[in-house]
């Protein structure tokens, strides 16, 4: 076929030396047609980034391509000498990376950096080069490009930087754009902007995009075709529409089932047992067999690729019996309905919490202003309930958590836990109350001291709180906790680095539970984890809530997790809560324009529930210098004159929720 742009045949990439190299990419075949968006989907460590880097021949020093063929048009990329390969990179194909922060040189203006790419492709005539830079910046939707060319990367927001990266990639008018997790580091509203931009650019230039991602939602939004990668191999290729309607491979099916959403509230989420096998071995059986719920005898031999149609296929023995391949509906065991906590006194009552960080300047470090990270937040949590705090990065939601725990000293406001006012407690009295409030962090790697054994980590709180004084009893309690979070007993005498991300997060949960807390603040506990592992942790949190009557303050940006887990939701924007209410009401019918935009920007898997994205222009303003009036008015699609002058109070609506918007007060 003449419309094939990229053809990869049996690509093999090994990492590391020695007798057991890691076979990061182990026989990958794929074809990308001109102008299509091809998504490579997989969990972390499955080799999807290595595939892209192998195609670009940009492997890290330890990596080497052991075999296979990569054809771009008629050129065989793997046979090119390095100088010719340089022409292809940035020429016919270009790449953008996950971290726009580290992909730009901080000491060069963005004009110079784009100019460099343009100069290589278009020659050295300065005037036409400057014109081309402006044109590129325009095409990626950067407002006021004439001024922006002279700015440095640190003056731009994350979304802007990613646009600059895209502009650089476009400088060579590529036929293929490889985007390696281009939106993972961005907020949902910015992610929506960038995805939209990629779509538009594709329509204008007709380039093909190889989109590498772990996010099913992103795939659903933009991809034409999908390939699922698992343990170094592609296990399923399908048209996007068919993939989301009827996934074929058991792994793909499980992935969908493990996604949390509101319909699954009363059930446990499906989980994929175990973890991805180590890739430094030679597989004889199917790589997914140990984790597969439908494994049978044939699976002991590695399955061959079965083509289902021209460009669809699956790597599974079940495909030999097509009638078996259909997704079977597995009834998940259900959770007990949550006992109603209405009428009880609130466990935690936060009133008008403010955390301001002073900005120092000059030799004498005078305070010249404040970063108002949290600027008057009020919330309550009843015992045994979950309040989700939702917002984009930088809106102050993590600071709220730390302010409640007194990890940062609040500037103003009251934090009442049961009967105690935490902000005025002496440090000694506070220390003794610490056992009742605990926290679980986002990054399970950073939240455990790598120099300590797991048992010491879990015991730390018990020792500090003098809960169990006898060391033998403490030991027994550690074992009990490990069992509760589903880890083997021998974990106690191992170090954190020996565990996978999900297991580490379980240890963190065990550590928090060790002191018998009544409230746990979960600060994005699943955002560093893969979907299937996320499901395990969510199940664990939910069952612990039921058995121990825990209350959670769940800080997250992931709406589907909120829908699955939370009873109440509070949406934060720039240090303040803009809308608060029960989860059903708020997600089904958001009132505040920011909530509406946020919810519409979330990529969704089900094609039926796809809504029109309300595009928010620009980025969140700096909390050091918030806009006058309503903080949201510069980006608000329905802003009025009144919004520019006064901040709307948080007012209750008849249905019980609280909204801070003049429009809503007016009854829209």
């Amino acid at each position: 076929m003449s419309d094939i742009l990229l053809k990869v045949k049996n690509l093999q990439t090994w990492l590391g030396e020695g007798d057991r190299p890691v076979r990061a990419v182990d026989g990958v075949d794929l074809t990308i047609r001109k102008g299509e968006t091809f998504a490579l989907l997989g969990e972390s460590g499955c080799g999807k980034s290595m595939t892209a880097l192998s195609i670009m021949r940009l492997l890290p020093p330890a990596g080497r391509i052991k075999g296979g063929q990569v054809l771009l048009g008629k050129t065989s990329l793997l046979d090119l000498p390095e100088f010719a390969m340089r022409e292809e990179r940035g020429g016919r194909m270009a790449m953008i990376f996950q971290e726009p922060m580290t992909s730009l040189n901080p000491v060069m203006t963005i004009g110079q950096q784009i100019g460099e790419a343009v100069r290589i492709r278009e020659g050295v005539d300065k005037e036409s080069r400057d014109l081309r830079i402006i044109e590129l910046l325009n095409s990626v939707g950067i407002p006021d490009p004439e001024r922006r060319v002279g700015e440095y990367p640190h003056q731009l927001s994350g979304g802007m930087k990613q646009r600059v990266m895209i502009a650089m990639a476009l400088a060579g008018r590529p036929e293929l754009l490889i985007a390696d997790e281009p939106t993972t580091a961005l907020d949902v509203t910015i992610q929506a902007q960038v995805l939209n931009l990629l779509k538009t650019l594709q329509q204008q230039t007709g380039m093909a995009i190889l989109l590498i991602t772990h996010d099913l939602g992103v795939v659903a939004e933009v991809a034409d075709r999908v390939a699922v990668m698992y343990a170094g191999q592609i296990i399923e290729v399908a048209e996007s529409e068919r993939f989301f309607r009827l996934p074929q491979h058991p792994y793909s099916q499980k992935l969908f089932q493990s996604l949390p959403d509101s319909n699954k509230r009363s059930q446990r989420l499906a989980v994929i047992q175990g973890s991805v096998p180590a890739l430094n071995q030679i597989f004889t059986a199917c790589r997914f067999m140990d984790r597969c719920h439908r494994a049978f005898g044939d699976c002991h031999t590695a399955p061959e690729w079965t083509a289902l149609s021209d460009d669809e296929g699956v790597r599974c023995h079940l495909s030999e019996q097509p009638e078996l391949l259909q997704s079977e509906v597995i009834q998940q065991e259900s959770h007990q309905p949550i006992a109603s906590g209405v009428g009880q006194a609130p466990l935690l009552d936060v009133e008008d919490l403010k955390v301001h960080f002073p900005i120092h300047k000059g030799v004498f470090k005078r305070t010249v202003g404040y970063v108002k990270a949290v600027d008057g937040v009020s919330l309550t949590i009843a015992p045994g309930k979950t309040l989700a705090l939702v917002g984009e990065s930088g809106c102050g939601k993590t600071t709220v958590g730390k302010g409640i725990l007194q990890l940062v000293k609040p500037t103003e406001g009251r934090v009442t836990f049961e009967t105690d006012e935490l902000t005025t407690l002496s440090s000694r009295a506070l220390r003794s109350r610490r056992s009742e409030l605990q926290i679980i962090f986002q990054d399970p790697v950073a939240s455990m001291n790598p120099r300590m054994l797991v048992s010491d980590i879990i015991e730390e709180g018990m020792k500090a709180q003098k809960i169990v004084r006898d060391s033998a009893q403490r030991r027994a309690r550690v074992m009990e906790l490990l069992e509760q979070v589903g880890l083997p007993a021998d974990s106690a005498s191992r170090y954190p680095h020996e565990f996978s991300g999900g297991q580490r997060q379980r240890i963190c949960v065990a550590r928090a539970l060790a002191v018998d807390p009544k409230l746990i603040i979960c600060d994005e506990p699943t955002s560093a984890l893969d979907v299937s592992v996320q499901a395990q942790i969510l199940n664990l949190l939910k069952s612990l809530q039921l058995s121990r009557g825990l209350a959670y303050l769940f800080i997250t940006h992931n709406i589907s997790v909120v829908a699955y887990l939370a009873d109440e939701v509070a949406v934060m924007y720039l240090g303040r809560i803009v809308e608060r209410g029960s989860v059903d009401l708020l997600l089904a019918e958001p009132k505040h324009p920011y909530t509406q935009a946020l919810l519409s920007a979330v990529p969704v898997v089900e094609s039926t529930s796809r809504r029109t994205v309300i595009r928010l222009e620009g980025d969140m303003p700096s909390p050091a210098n918030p806009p006058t009036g309503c903080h949201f008015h510069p980006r608000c699609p329905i802003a009025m004159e009144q919004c520019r002058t006064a901040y709307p109070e948080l007012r209750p609506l008849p249905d019980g929720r609280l909204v801070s918007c003049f429009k809503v007060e007016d009854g829209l």
Partner: protein
Amino acid sequence: MMGELVILWTDALIFMLVLFSMAFGIYAAGKEHLRGPWGLVVRSRVGVSTLVILSFYVVVGLLDSVHFHPLLDSKDQAGQQTQSAEVISLFDYLVTPLRERQEKTYSAPLATHLYAKESIELASGEVVRDFPRLTFGGAHLENPEQEWSRDIWRLTGIGVLKGLLVSVVVTNILIALLAGRWKTSFGAVAKVLIKEETTVPWRVLLATLSSVILVLFWSIELSSQYHILGTDKVGEDVFYQALKSIRTGLLIGTLTTLVMLPAAILLGIMAGYYRGWVDDLIQYTYTTLNSIPGVLLIAAAILMLQIYMSNHADEFNSLVERADLRLLFLCIILGVTSWTGLCRLLRGEAMKLREVDYVQAAVAFGVGHFTIIVRHILPNVLHIVLITVVLDFSGLVLAEAVLSYVNIGVDPTMNSWGNMINSARLEMAREPVVWWSLLASMLFMFVLVLSANLFSDVVRDAFDPRLRSSR
């Protein structure tokens, strides 16, 4: 032989340091994060061979750190053996011939005659000006002109032969030990070693060890009859001087670190962890200290000490004790001027660590500040401390040479490479040039500093988490 032990300040400190390192070794063996990197160090070829060379230096330095009054042959009235007022070390005792065979003045390496002409009265009563024979160097030769080169070759041959013999014995003992530990046969171990299929590069280790042993026996054999590196102005053996200087170099390199570590670790972590006024105070202290030239501080301190010592001359029992006190003060003042670098590094690291989630989690558990510092911050900055200590070592050895050269280093009576270089200044201006003092000190210092630098590279590679992940 040995009379009353004399424990000098530096001796006590150096053995404390040895005990401390052994205790740390035992502690580290139980901790995966410390044992692992050391495992990497001994798995590297450069690591093991430099380790062998360094341990040779350390053995000499430690032997030289056991001081005592030697017993004299004569007996006092009570029938007790009298002991000399002189203080010598175990090392001095072992190489007594080297120490005692003094010539009149300069003589070249392996020479049989002095380097300066003198009036010699012949048996016939005639007086001629010629190079006189040395009292000890090559004294056994009847006719030096003809027998000299053959004698050198003979001694070399014997030395090499003995060296080879000892190397073979050592190698066999090691293989037998390994065979016992791996529970395989002697031959199998030997085969594995030769093919170098072991994780620890035993072959490299054995090769280095054998060469060290060869050189050792060769020099023992030659120095029994000759001054292999010549003699200095007062006729002292230069080889002996260079060997004695090892202790000085090692002491400066290690004790200084010992002095600076507590201050650097404590203040650095405190500044980074507490922030606020504590941080300001510590930062201003070390910025101020840093802006005073280090040499100036050292010169002031050493000159003051000199005045004190000359005013209180009666407080010191011997010259050795006096020189030792000056060495100790040099270590302390070097420590005072050099803690700031590590302190700054640790402050930054502690500042980073206090915001890390596991420290925040510990705060959320109500763990006290002291416990957090000891349990969470200190173990996570230890690798920086270790890297700095090893990297600083060679710099300090070189610093001693420079300071002694400008006369504000160790006592002039003390053997040190710096003092040797200092005296070589005049010798180089002499005609004909006396080059061997300078060469000897350079050679010994070069080998030590080069192996220390190579070793510290290996240590840094093994301990630095960033370098580890990129491999």
